[in-house]
């Protein structure tokens, strides 16, 4: 049976882009070999995290629905590994 992929949603809202979020669009190609095929990366319209200060600072992404603030490619890779380990 196929292992369920980790779902990463990258916010493409204006604020996230302005605060460096465009880099996150490169996540798929920056994944280390052991994570390739295990992660499904998708872009998303504004995820609306930016309107609630408790969520932290942009850019935002989600990993299996969990909000990641101040996301960077390296942070997302680290968080994906945590998610896999459970």
């Amino acid at each position: 049976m196929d292992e369920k992929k980790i779902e990463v949603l990258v916010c493409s809202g204006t604020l996230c882009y302005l605060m460096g979020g465009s880099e996150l669009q490169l996540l798929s190609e920056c994944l280390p070999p052991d994570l390739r095929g295990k992660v499904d990366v998708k872009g998303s319209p504004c995820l609306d995290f930016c309107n609630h200060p408790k969520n932290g600072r942009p850019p935002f992404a989600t990993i299996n629905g969990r909000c990641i603030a101040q996301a960077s490619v390296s942070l997302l890779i680290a968080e994906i590994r945590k998610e896999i380990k459970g």
Partner: protein
Amino acid sequence: MLIRRELITRVVRLLIENRLEEGINRIPLEMRPRKNGSVRCCVHKDRAVIKYKLMALLGYNISDEVDELTPLSDYARMANQRTELTDTVLTVVDEACSSCRKTSYQVTNMCRGCVARPCMVNCPKDAIKFVDGQASIDHTTCVNCGQCLKVCPFHAIVYMPVPCEEACPVGAISKGDDGVESIDITKCINCGKCMTACPFGAVMEKSHLVEIFRNKREGKKLVAMVAPAIAGQFNADMGKILHSFKELGFDYVYEVAEGADITTKLEAAELQERLESGAPFMTTSCCPAYTQLVDKHIEQLKPYVSHTHTPMYYSAQVARHNHPNDVLVFVSPCPAKRWESFHDPNVDYTLSFEEYGAWMVAAGIDVSALRSTDIDKFPSAEGRGFGASGGVTQAVKALAPSTLKITDIQINGIDKAAIRQLKSFPKSCPGNFVEVMTCEGGCIGGCNVISNPKVALRQLKQAVEAAPSIVSIEV
């Protein structure tokens, strides 16, 4: 970069609410509250740096300050009454600077004090002595040749650059006796590489935001002229990006890619004429940092630079003809274009890509969620392609007659090595058409861009594919 963008967003928010004078003094306090710790030595230093960065966003040189007690609200009031701009585009925030040591080689504690002592033996100026068993460089005699770094078997010697000086391709930024950097405007080509390189954000671009909003408040109509590289800045198609300007309050929007089509037509004709009359080569002229480079530093290359004007020039001509009494705002990827806009007879103000993005955030506009506006008149695919390196070449080749044999060369980013190469061209140029872009990747790599250039290039390609070929439209 992120602090600058937050500052721009806060300033624009106050401008939208028409409370700049009342609100601007609070920004340093809001961004650095007393109990939230500081980035620099203390919260007061952080606030002072923010104050001076805001001064640049109000359109002032930091060196314009005559009294340190002048509050930002006074500068805001004076900016609102200001009628004249200058062509000094970049300003150094001295409060944020002076943290870098002069460029030097330093011995780290990795030095083992070895017996062979290759650093000392190879130093051509005898600047290295051994003190307490470790190498020590005498900086009064060291000439920064780097020999010691190359020969140390323990990699114990490091090179400590001054990032802004290292990035400046023309030696226009340097330290004064007080350790603070200053820009020599007689040498500066306004490329903005110092602004990108400084990790303290100490170089700022002066803004025209106050003027743009004042004109809007006075009921003037605003005309946006968007540089081709804008197509890559957000995860949105060109129709949405054009529509976003209407949402921001602009009355008309022009794609400067239409001006690029005129540039292409005239540049292709000029290239043909020059080559047929025996000229060895011609270089492009659409990058104003490059043309300033030639004017100020490579005089011998001047006769080979195309006389065709930039896409912005032609777009502004058309826009001014259509809107004689309106305010023309060029939406720009870099400070060099701001400098060019100042000298253009038809452009009134410049809005950087960063300022455009910050304005949308302040206005609560998500560009990707907007409807896509219908584009009445498409520019050509080649015109849109001017936003990336190789675009001008591709466009000129498309319109030049097939009998004209074009051997193209691309200078994709200006640094010291590229300048040496350009200086050699009048004596020997390996091609007959030289495209020069000061920023690597072209305008999508400009220092005001929002999007990663790799991501921007993908987005730009989609905008190019959506437009017709230049050979199929009437220019």
